[in-house]
């Protein structure tokens, strides 16, 4: 895949939640953008702006009410739950704010978990887990439990888990939300390194410091995309529906 080929194409995506009593709430309104392979994109926006909903749609955890979402060349907006689970397992890597590790399982087990659902044998899973742990500088930690390592290390484990299925894209939802500033910097440095290795990264954050590591920024406000451009060129005055 060349660097200019789009991994994500979002076309006129809207998301409306229908509530009891006939009320509805429009969370995303006519969102359009694409993300090319190898990009490092930060999705920003205030609380309640719709950025998490957008992230859920991009991560195939939710479907748009209307519009088209093309991920890695295939239209996923109309896929059923089984197909979406398969896409999540094979095409996407997730990094969560709370790390979401299995606390009773070893680091190696946690890292290799996505491969379990792809029917890959235990030996291969373990081998791949060791490789991924080396990649995130956690060599020798495979037999420990998550409770035996620091929060920063736990997030590295989560990143290793996101990398293990060679995803087309990594989605990180507030990846530094539970970390101190020094550890946050280390995690963001790791994301930068991975991006330089060619991995496409989309992260959701409300922290400017974290967004500064991204090259491109998409800002959402009240369900509208109000900015889409280089992070370094962003200024609040430019915010307008686009």
């Amino acid at each position, binding site marked *: 895949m060349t660097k200019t080929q789009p991994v994500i194409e979002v076309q006129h995506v809207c998301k409306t939640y229908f509530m009891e009593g006939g009320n509805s709430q429009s969370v995303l309104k006519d969102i359009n953008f694409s993300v090319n392979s190898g990009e490092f994109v930060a999705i920003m926006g205030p609380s309640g702006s719709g950025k998490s909903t957008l992230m859920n749609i991009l991560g195939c955890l939710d479907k748009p009410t209307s519009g088209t979402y093309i991920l890695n060349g295939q239209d996923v907006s109309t896929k059923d739950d089984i197909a979406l*689970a*398969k896409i*999540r*397992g*094979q095409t996407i890597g997730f990094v969560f704010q*709370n790390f*979401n590790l*299995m606390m009773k399982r070893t680091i190696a087990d946690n890292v290799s978990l996505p491969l*379990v659902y792809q*029917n890959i044998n235990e030996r291969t899973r373990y081998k791949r887990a060791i490789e991924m742990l080396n990649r995130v500088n956690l060599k020798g930690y495979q037999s420990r439990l998550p409770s035996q390592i620091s929060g920063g290390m736990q997030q590295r484990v989560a990143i290793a888990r996101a990398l293990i299925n060679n995803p087309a894209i990594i989605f990180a939802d507030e990846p530094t939300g539970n970390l101190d500033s020094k550890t946050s910097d280390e995690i963001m440095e790791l994301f930068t390194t991975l991006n330089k290795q060619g991995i496409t990264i989309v992260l959701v954050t409300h922290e400017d410091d974290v967004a500064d590591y991204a090259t491109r920024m998409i800002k959402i406000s009240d369900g509208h995309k109000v900015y889409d451009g280089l992070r370094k060129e962003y200024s609040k005055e430019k915010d307008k529906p686009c």
Partner: protein
Amino acid sequence: MLKAILKEAWISITAYKLRTFLTMLGIMIGVAAVVMMVSAGQAVQTYITKSFESIGSNLIVIGPAEIVSGGVRGGRGLPSVTVADITALKELKDVEATSFIMPAAVQAVYGSSNYGVSVRGTNPEFIVINNWEIEDGIMFTEKDVKAAKPYIVIGQTVVDELFGLQNPLGKTMRLKGKPFTVIGTLKEKGDGLMGDDQDNVILMPWTTVRQRLEGSERPQYTNIAFVKAVSEDKMERVSKRVEYMLRTRHRLKEGVKNDFTIRLMTEMVEKVRSVGFILSALLAVIASISLIVGSIGIMNMMLVSVTERTREIGTRKALGAPNNWIMLQFLAESILISFIGSFIGMIFGVIFSQIGGYILNYEVPISIWSVIVSVTVAVVVGIISGLMPALKAMRLNPIDALRYQ
């Protein structure tokens, strides 16, 4: 896939050992109770059946007719079958032996000891028909019967009570003041079906009972008679021949009811078996209640587990776990808990029933079907009790599950 699911399920249930053990306990107790109760029922069944079979399953028992007055049964009538009838029955085809009892209850005296015993006047074939064995000495013969010899064969209780450590053979004891010589002792039989002491018995020729003891008012008649068929499959035919011959000998016209009753031992054994089966089934049903309680425990634990692990479920789904994978994992957890619990319960059930049998001196058979049924039921219970939580886990929306605090 199945191996991976089972491994994930195993890791999950072993992560919370105490909780899993406490949940298993319900199923363990339930299965152990079922196995023990069924074993107890079968032990009783086996005991009764063996008691009958020790008498001989190819036996036909002839007794007095039932008195029925105005549709109400009034017990047994007077004995109507004579010794001559029984002797004649021996000549029938497929009849191996015949015997009968003329009972009397007397006080037996030896030296300064005395003991109340049950006397049975009979013929030499009595011990053959009833599968009794001589311990020491001999059984009286047909010659002794004809001569009404005062020879007696005594049971072990009589030996213990009257002779103690002495050898009773050749000794003379007194019954109703008359002397009788002990020519043999019987092997120990133990208690009868009704808890009666089968060893508190004295056998003597029926002619001796008539002549030397007081006898009954109708001394030619026997209270109970036995006809032994050559084999079990000939029982029906032999019983028909016996009925025909007795009716002929008693000159009973057509339409007149029998003045005797005929019972087949096979029928009695079958009845006892069916009663034993019902008893076992009843006990199993009662014990199954604890299995139901155990299954509710599993369902409760699994529901709690699904709630506790909501975020884990969300994470697994986000990482590519299909919905059916999530469902099967939770189902596998409940099946594993119930299977392991039932397996341990089965082992305890077998051990405890054997210990119980040893203490109570009963032979307790290990019922394979009760083991298979209880383990199968436990697994089915595991599936049923795990299904609802598993479906709940499967239906969780990954976004809501990931947000769960």
